[in-house]
């Protein structure tokens, strides 16, 4: 939970940055999964109509 929600300023900026780095890695993995996923979808013929 972000410090904003807790309503306190105890967490240091460095700690927030550390948490942000973990989240960023996760989002990067999501993007990579979408990329690979669509190529795999492309390999499977007839998934799309038309």
């Amino acid at each position, binding site marked *: 939970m*972000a*410090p*904003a*929600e*807790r*309503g*306190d*300023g105890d967490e240091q*900026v460095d700690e*927030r*940055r550390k*948490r*942000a*780095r973990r*989240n*960023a890695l996760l*989002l*990067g993995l*999501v*993007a*990579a999964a*979408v*990329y*690979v*996923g*669509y*190529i795999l979808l*492309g*390999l499977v*013929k007839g998934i*799309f*109509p*038309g």
Partner: protein
Amino acid sequence: MSTTAIDVHAGHHHPKGVWPWIMRWVTTTNHKDIGTLYLTFSLVMLFVGGALAWVIRAELWQPGMQFVQPHVFNQMTTVHALVMVFAAIMPAFAGFANWMIPMLIGAPDMALPRLNNWSFWLLPFATGLLILTFFLPGGAPAAGWTLYPPLVLQQGASLPFSIFAVHLLGLSSIMASINIIVTIMNMRAPGMSLMKMPMFCWTWLITAYLIIIAMPVLAGAVTMLLTDQFFGTSFFSAAGGGDPVMYQHIFWFFGHPEVYIIILPAFGIISQVIPAFSRKPLFGYAAMVYATAAIAFLSLIVWAHHMFTVGMPLGGQLFFMLSTMLIAIPTGVKVFNWTATMWRGSLTFETPMLFALGFLFMFTIGGFSGLMLAIAPADFQYHDSYFVVAHFHYVLVPGALFGAFAGAYYWLPKWTGVMYDEKLGRWHFWLSTIFVNLTFFPQHFLGLAGMPRRIPDYAVQFADFNMMSSIGAFGFGAAQLLFVWIVIKAVRGKGEKAADKPWEGAEGLEWTVPSPAPHHTFDTPPVIK
């Protein structure tokens, strides 16, 4: 750098000498510097894309072939679109995000400053790669910005260059988006809950998620083009058992959200500007947030309305027609809420408000013609005509670009510390508004009368409206030089000194810091009650 003489002025570091000055910008991790880099780059690219548009409009000045060969004309339309979308408009809003999001949420900087630097510096190289294709055998890509196979696979050496450029541009956008999401989710000042954030942050948060979902799909599509061309696959080749229509589905699964990736940050800016100059809080804040999220969700399930004419089952046509029309509901919520914000407000019409109002009127024209295009049976008539060109230019130019101008004038005093020239600003607005309508309104009539898009020559009955459109385009481009002059004047500090809060009705943390904003803001987080 430690041995370099540094002049510290208002917290800004001004290294002496050319090389240290270059390295300061190349290696900067400051969100304000990177915001400035994005904004400057996008302004330059606006003129590069504009120059290509001028070639298009010069060729279409009158029937017959005047200046360029048909193949070169197709290169112009293709690269104009790619440059404007990926190198002008998207980086412009990324610039606003970099400059403003940390200040709006009370954070000292973006969460990942080095990633931020890399996101920006990929852009000039990627765009350079794209523009260099003009000098290759066969020239630049000429199959339209959609890069449809099989056409795009039949054209010269530009394909791998443009695909690599698209990969890099996508990577840059994805990294910037990741940075924006983690900044907003982790770096807000104590007390700033999500539902207290300024609307600009909300629209960018939602846009960033859209980018992460949509951009890898484009990257996937162009990678498949690359392997079809060079590695013997047949994803999109009917001869090898593939399907070219599948490319269109995959491309538009990216392409439609892309439209909203461009317009949502503009919505955010308009939601900041209209309340400030109406001296009233934004009407229906929560509804605005939910409407933005609804638009983003719907944008992911409407893609095949771009390709009704390729043929699809009746159920598919109905689904994509109705889901597209549904977008009018949350968009209507936003338009009516902006109008309700102004209702009984004490309105003043400084340049940012003029651009916001221009946005409101003219984006809505683009929205309405979008509804017309959504009607599947009618789309069979409109498809690939100038009506489509008129529609999306209304959304992107007096829509997205005017949104960016509104934001630039609104925040220029905070960025530069001086008030821009208000009189010139109004001239910029009125000239832009007159010429943008002269350019694009006649294109509706041309399209309805049957003029196809992406052609360098046309039948004589289209001559008059084309000439009007060309005059408009030349005038619109020239009017933008005024904006450059206004910005240069403000950056050089020529003008009245700006107060910390130059706009009486403006709300937000950015107005609590001095103008110009110091290099580092909110090292100690502000507490929001």
